[in-house]
């Protein structure tokens, strides 16, 4: 029996206050280590960097990591970028090891959604991948 398409889902929730604290304590080093230049541009407004928008991006990165399943070898958070498109929708762009993991697992059709409520931001990431049906829980019994 060959491989079949299956969905992978990842979700993450981030307290905006923890992002504010990280900016206050670690300043630019935190921003540069976690976010891409484009993400930082997207999150800068008239009043400086917006922690709400950063929190949504961090949640998207962590949700994507749950989809990519990197195992015992980590990856840079900047290898996963949340892009805001002209129509207001968002998409995930992968580079470096994140792109390698996606290719190795034959992951395609990444989709992402982010939301804010009060002092929290959340993201869900989904991708289609190939899996061996013998590894499926419903095939084990």
């Amino acid at each position, binding site marked *: 029996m060959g491989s079949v398409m299956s969905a992978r889902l990842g979700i993450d929730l981030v307290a905006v206050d*923890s992002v504010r604290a*990280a900016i206050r*304590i*670690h300043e630019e080093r*935190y921003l540069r280590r*976690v976010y891409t230049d484009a993400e930082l541009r997207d999150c800068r407004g008239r009043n400086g960097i917006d922690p709400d928008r950063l929190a949504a991006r961090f949640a998207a990165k*962590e949700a994507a990591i749950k989809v990519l399943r990197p195992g015992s070898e*980590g*990856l840079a958070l900047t290898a996963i970028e949340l892009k805001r498109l002209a129509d207001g929708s968002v998409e995930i762009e992968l580079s470096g090891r994140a792109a390698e993991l996606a290719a190795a697992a034959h992951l395609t059709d990444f989709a992402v959604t982010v939301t804010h409520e009060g002092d929290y931001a959340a993201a869900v990431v989904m991708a289609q991948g190939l899996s061996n049906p013998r590894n499926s829980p419903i095939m084990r019994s």
Partner: protein
Amino acid sequence: MTDEIRQIIERHARLSAPADGLAVDADLYEAGMTSHASVSVMLALEDHFDIEFPDRMLTRGVFESIAAIEAAVIQLRPEAALQ
């Protein structure tokens, strides 16, 4: 070094209970550390021990306990084990 790591966890991991009572092998994520807080812990460790975690070490396992963090710091800066 264990005490220094414990202090960093107390300040940056945003645990639901004080880090004083944590066993060195206690799971920090089960104790309330989020993935975002683990980034803050990593940056504070880098500052304190003058090290830099390479991308390959940015895994849940490296930051899951005081003992795991201590092993990682020693791997990056062996002389820290003698302090």
